[in-house]
Structure formats: C-alpha cells, structure tokens
C-alpha cells in the first residue's frame, strides 16, 4: 500500500472539487488516473503489481492470459504496460483488444472493437479498466464480449481487473456477483460518492459548492 499511496500522492492524482460523474453520482474528490498515466515510472510499478496479483489470484486454468480487453486512451496505456508485465511473467504475450466509442449516423455513440478480429475464439480474456466506481465501463466491455460470443466467438473470460476499486458503496450482493481484482479500494483514499437523488443527497450540493468539472469522461 505504501508504494501505491506514494504513487498517487506524487502524481497529485487525487483532486478536490465537486465532480459529477457520467453515472450521475457526485464526488467531493476524484482520482485522476490520467495524471498517473503521464508518468511511465508509476505506470510500470502499478502494472507489475497487478500482473503479479493476477498470477496469484486467478485460477490456473485462466492462465496464461491471452487477451486484454480494455478501452482506448489512458486505459490503453495501462493495458499496454500490463501486457508487457504479463509477457515477462507468464512467458506469453497477450493481445491488446481496444474498444473505442464511435459516432454513428444516428448521432449516437457506440462502443466497438478498434480491430474487429482482435479477439479470437477460445482466447482467455481479461477484462480490464483503470478504475471502478459503479462498474459502468466494465459492463460496456462485458457487453462487447457478449456481442462477440453472439457472433460465434466463444472466448473464455478469466477475470476482471482494475487498478483502483472505488465501489465500496455498492450493495454487497452486486459486488460479490461482479468480483474484480484490484490493487486498492476507496477506503485507501477516503473518496466518497454521493447519489444526488438519494434522501441525503450530495454533501457538496448541500454546501452549494459549484460543480468545477466533469470527471474522467468515462462511465466509471
């Protein structure tokens, strides 16, 4: 944990404000993984730790990981570092399958694989995102996998992993059903999320703190 705290602190990744996430939740502080992604030394340390943890915690039939399914941009950078770390540890290079968001003719955005055939039948796939709050982005990735299976690609999902898991507020039943392997959780950084629609609402809203920014731009 000390190393993780040092990385987060040195990258100045926890920022204070009044953030509105795409999921609708509000937060008084958020973790900007973008700030970590810009420092290769930090990214490498996180990737090495996660790769080791995956090897320890995933069942042996899930190994070696053959494919990492994730999003473009900063998460893709973490996935690249994780892919290199896994290549060294498991002696087999996983393919990186990136998912992007594209505007279609109707004006809506749809997520799809950047390279259509990057997932191969029977691949052992790790679903990866940099952080989880409500799990929206992981759910999008899982939906992509279901679509691929509908096309006849019977991939094997070996697990889900994130660097940071901030889903402590989610119901236990949901969390148990959607287990992820992570390096840390929200209790480590004292990050609290508020549902503005709940009875208590958002603390920042009650204190009239103006919304300073939208968070990461993902569903998180």
């Amino acid at each position, binding site marked *: 944990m000390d190393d993780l705290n040092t990385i987060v602190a040195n990258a100045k990744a926890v920022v204070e404000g009044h953030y509105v996430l795409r999921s609708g939740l509000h937060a008084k502080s958020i973790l900007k993984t*973008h700030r970590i992604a810009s*420092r290769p030394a930090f990214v*490498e340390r996180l990737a090495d730790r996660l790769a080791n943890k995956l090897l320890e915690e995933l069942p042996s039939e899930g190994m070696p990981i053959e494919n990492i399914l994730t999003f473009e941009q*900063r998460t*893709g950078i973490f996935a*690249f570092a994780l892919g290199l770390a896994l290549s060294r540890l498991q002696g087999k290079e996983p393919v990186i399958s990136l998912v992007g968001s*594209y505007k*279609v003719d109707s004006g809506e955005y749809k997520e799809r694989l*950047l390279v259509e055939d990057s997932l191969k039948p029977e691949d052992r796939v790790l679903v990866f995102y940099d952080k989880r709050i409500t799990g929206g982005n992981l759910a999008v990735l899982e939906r992509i996998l279901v679509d691929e299976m509908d096309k006849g690609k019977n991939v094997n999902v070996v697990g889900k992993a994130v660097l940071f898991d901030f889903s402590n507020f989610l119901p236990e039943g949901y969390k148990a059903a959607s287990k992820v392997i992570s390096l840390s959780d929200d209790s480590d950084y004292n990050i609290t999320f508020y549902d503005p629609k709940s009875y208590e609402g958002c603390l920042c809203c009650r204190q009239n703190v103006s919304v300073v920014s939208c968070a990461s731009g993902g569903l998180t």
Partner: protein
Amino acid sequence: MIPPIEEILRDINELQALKGDGHYQLSTGRHSRRFLRSWVLVQKVTLIERISNLLAQSFWHDEINAVLSSSVMPCPIIAYGVARAFCTSGKSVRLVLPINEHNRLKIGSSDEILPGERVMIIHDIAVRGGVINQLEDLITGSRAHIAGVGMVFDVSGGEVQFPKDVKTVAIIKEGFGKEDSVNCTMCREGIPLENPYDELHPS
C-alpha cells in the same frame, strides 16, 4: 540476430497492417496505392515496445522533458512507450496527451507543458504533417522547445515542413504512391476507391 527494423516490418506484415496494391482514400483527401492500418499495431505490445525503443534510441543523447502525441491510436501508446524507454535509462520524461476540441488539439487541465521545456513529438504516419504542425503549435504556444519529431512511417516524400534545426527521425520512409485525387492514375485505371477508415467508423 534480426535487426530491429526487420523485426518491426515482420510484425507489421504478420498483423496485416500494410495494405498494398489497392486504391485508398487518405485522410488528407489524397489517393494512395498503399495504406497502413496503424491502429492494428496496438494489438502487439512487443511490437510497440520495439518501435518505441528504436525511436527513443535516436534521441538518447538529447535533452527531453516530455513526449507529446495526438490522442488517436496508436500514437498515445507509442508515445508512452518512448517516454517509458527514456525513463528506463534513468531520465525523467513524462507523457503529454492533448485533448481534441472541435478538431483542434489543446492541452487539457490535467496536463501541462512548461515554458522552456524540451518536448519530443511522436506520430504514427506523416502524410502532409497536419497533426505534427498542430502539436508543434502546442509546444511553441507554451513557450517550450521542440526537441525532435519521431515518426513510425514518413510517407510525405519530403513534403512536411518541419521547423529548421529540428531533428526528425522516421523508422520507415517510403512514398506509398500518393497522388492528388484530381488526375489520379488509379482513378483513371478504374481501380475501385476504398476508404480504409470505414473499418474504424462503420455507419
């Protein structure tokens, strides 16, 4: 031992990234006989590592504070790989990825380029240099210096105007048989025109 460039070309062929003997519409509007689907390169981490290391080695003895690229894949991952290669050799180099706002690149609130810093530009394919010019503007607009430009493919045929005295390195240089869309030989030959970006942006 296979030279690094041979290994890179072998991987590019394995990934079927290079499309040849066709008639392709480039993003610049020009037509070309060949086309590199650069986005497929990100699938193979050791290929990106090889490309990044080779680009970093060309600037090994230069002072670099940050690496800047566009946010379009595979550029961010190659740029990260270059910054990583510098860091592995003991240098402190960070990655800066601009955001795209109304088709113009700008530095987001989480990033910064400080005045006086030496910033290296990384790009996948230089055709006319439009993106590279925008990245240069971001650096000079921050009163920083362009430390160099590293490209995987330079297919510009010398058309891209780089600022004087800026070191530029391309792993692979070739013409790709580009032609203006008016008076295009392939159009005259009746070869059907393909838009390779349809693969990325299906309707």
